[in-house]
């Protein structure tokens, strides 16, 4: 079983949802970002999404755009993001880690080389925002061939006719983007999320994680009652943006992560 399968199976046994946390690799600098990454599992993160910075994050809102800018200003690149994963794995061999980003840096690094290096570093899965199933052969197919999960985004615009196309070849989990919009934008109604999860369940047995616009422990708890996972990104990243020192950034992110984790863990209790 992959790390993602194992993790979601464990959580199912404990009848609770996963807290999935997103941070951008190298934000605000390599050392601070690594300290945050290493601290996330103890702070309650069940699955980690690590952003690969890109100059043109077309699907991201202001918070993650700024995170990308900070990381790139600190000379973060794909090789360093993979190095972060290697350093993280030295102390954690259980927490699933998924790389998330845009295709161009991977394309430039070389797809075959990227897959090999990501696998060797201990990456479990990939989310590449601008690679729809229409372009499976570019990365999804070769990545899955070596056991890297390829996690797809499904959205409110992905209708029943299209869902099989999107889910075919998805693995790990399904990331439901609960609002049509960029990351960090307003949140969906509970009713919408309930309907969406019910619809997804008719099409897949993969765990469903819900993201976009989830910022508080209360909101996370509400979502945790409906789905197998709750994704939080922009709210954590705001802690980095607002911090006056690297120490404050680490404390801020891990502190919020703990509170979110409590919300998620007590949701079904």
């Amino acid at each position, binding site marked *: 079983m992959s790390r993602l399968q194992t993790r979601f199976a464990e959580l199912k046994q404990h009848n609770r949802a996963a807290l999935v946390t997103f941070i951008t690799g190298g934000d605000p600098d390599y050392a601070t970002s690594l300290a945050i990454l290493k601290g996330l599992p103890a702070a309650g993160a069940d699955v980690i999404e690590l952003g690969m910075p890109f100059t*043109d994050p077309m699907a991201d809102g202001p918070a993650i755009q700024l995170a990308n800018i900070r990381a790139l200003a600190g000379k973060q690149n*794909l090789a360093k993001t993979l190095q972060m994963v290697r350093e993280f794995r030295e102390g954690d061999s259980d927490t699933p880690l998924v790389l998330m980003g845009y295709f*161009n840096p991977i394309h*430039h690094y070389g797809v075959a080389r990227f897959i090999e290096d990501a696998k060797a570093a201990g990456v479990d899965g990939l989310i590449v925002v601008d690679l*729809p199933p229409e372009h499976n052969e570019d990365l999804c197919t070769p990545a899955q061939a070596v056991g890297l999960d390829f996690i797809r*985004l499904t959205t409110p615009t992905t209708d029943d006719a299209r869902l099989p196309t999107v889910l075919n070849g998805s693995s790990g989990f399904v990331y439901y983007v609960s609002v049509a919009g960029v990351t960090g934008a307003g949140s969906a109604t509970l009713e919408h999320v309930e309907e969406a999860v019910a619809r997804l369940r008719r099409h897949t047995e993969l765990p469903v994680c819900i993201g976009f616009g989830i910022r508080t422990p209360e909101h996370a708890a509400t979502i945790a009652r409906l789905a197998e996972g709750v994704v939080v990104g922009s709210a954590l990243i705001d802690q980095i943006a607002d911090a006056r020192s690297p120490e404050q950034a680490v404390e801020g992110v891990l502190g919020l992560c703990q509170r979110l984790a409590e919300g998620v863990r007590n949701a079904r209790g």
Partner: protein
Amino acid sequence: MPGSQNSYRNGPDAKGLFGHFGGQYVAETLMPLIHDLAAEYEKAKADPEFIKELAYFQRDYVGRPSPLYFAERLTEHCGGAKIYLKREELNHTGAHKINNCIGQILLARRMGKKRIIAETGAGMHGVATATVAARFGMECVIFMGTTDIDRQQANVFRMKLLGATVIPVVAGTGTLKDAMNEALRDWVTNVHNTFYMIGTVAGPHPYPAMVRDFQAVIGKETREQILEKEGRLPDSLVACIGGGSNAIGLFHPFLDDAGVQIVGVEAAGYGIATGKHAASLNGGEPGVLHGNRTFLLQDDDGQIIDAHSISAGLDYPGIGPEHAWLHDVGRVEYTSVTDDEALAAFHQCCRLEGIIPALESAHALAEVFKRAPTLPKDHLMVVNLSGRGDKDMQTVMHHLGDALAPQENKA
């Protein structure tokens, strides 16, 4: 070549690919809409009513056909090839951009969309978009980088006069690429009621093919006009390239005419060796941005590098995927000219022909000044004068204000 063994004109394939270039590299939220758009465009293309309506607006609203003008003084000055200018600058709103906007707004109306968004660099596409949105009574939001807003204030004012909301984009260097990112973000957010009017032959399929088809009226007219005037096809075509819509519009109807030499001119900015340029083919590498695989300016980590050109309309780090493919297969020759060369050509055109060209089009003219003198007098060369230079007064004054000052005092 896509679709056929013996034509350069059948691309893209069903997946939106021109060889290895093009495609649909966008977020899932947009995929269903892009498929809808492609299907709707296929239907419209075959609908006689749509074709009739498009022709009506091209004629009575845009002012087509645009003249093919024998540039006698330019020809004499160069002393070689016989130079014709395709006068796209005489279109309503002053550039070729409106050819595409008229087509897309008719499509938006067919699809029941009420809100139009667009990105703009020089502001010409923004003005053309605001114009057709006003004509069809639709809400219009234009995304424009703050750097471009500074250097194209007259166009910003024009868009506002036409009822558009202009949203300044501060991200990146505040130029066309950043405006396009922001337009894509808006589209993802308002996908239910919004039509994204992309201004060039880039973006996800079907945009590169659709925008090309709407711009191909340039080449179709040129073909008829040159046959009427000269009784034969031209020997060469020259056009400037940012995203490449005016160029593909002129080139496409001639791609299968082996005797027609085709030259695309990229913006070399301060010079390609300086790294400060906008020449994606001559100074970039293949990559994926804004929905398509094409040549891009990028660094060793695949991060996009900001383009530089004196001309805001060419200031983009990518190029339409069909051009990338035509470059790859060698059908079109892609060269580049610097800011200084374009400025010199701009002046020559003003003085020799009494036509103030857009700085974008001045890049094509600069290439003409290099080539025409070396060619025989019976060589027919057609240059796309894609836009007029009124919008560039501020930029040109900034560069040459001092040189012109004494003459102004005398007058």
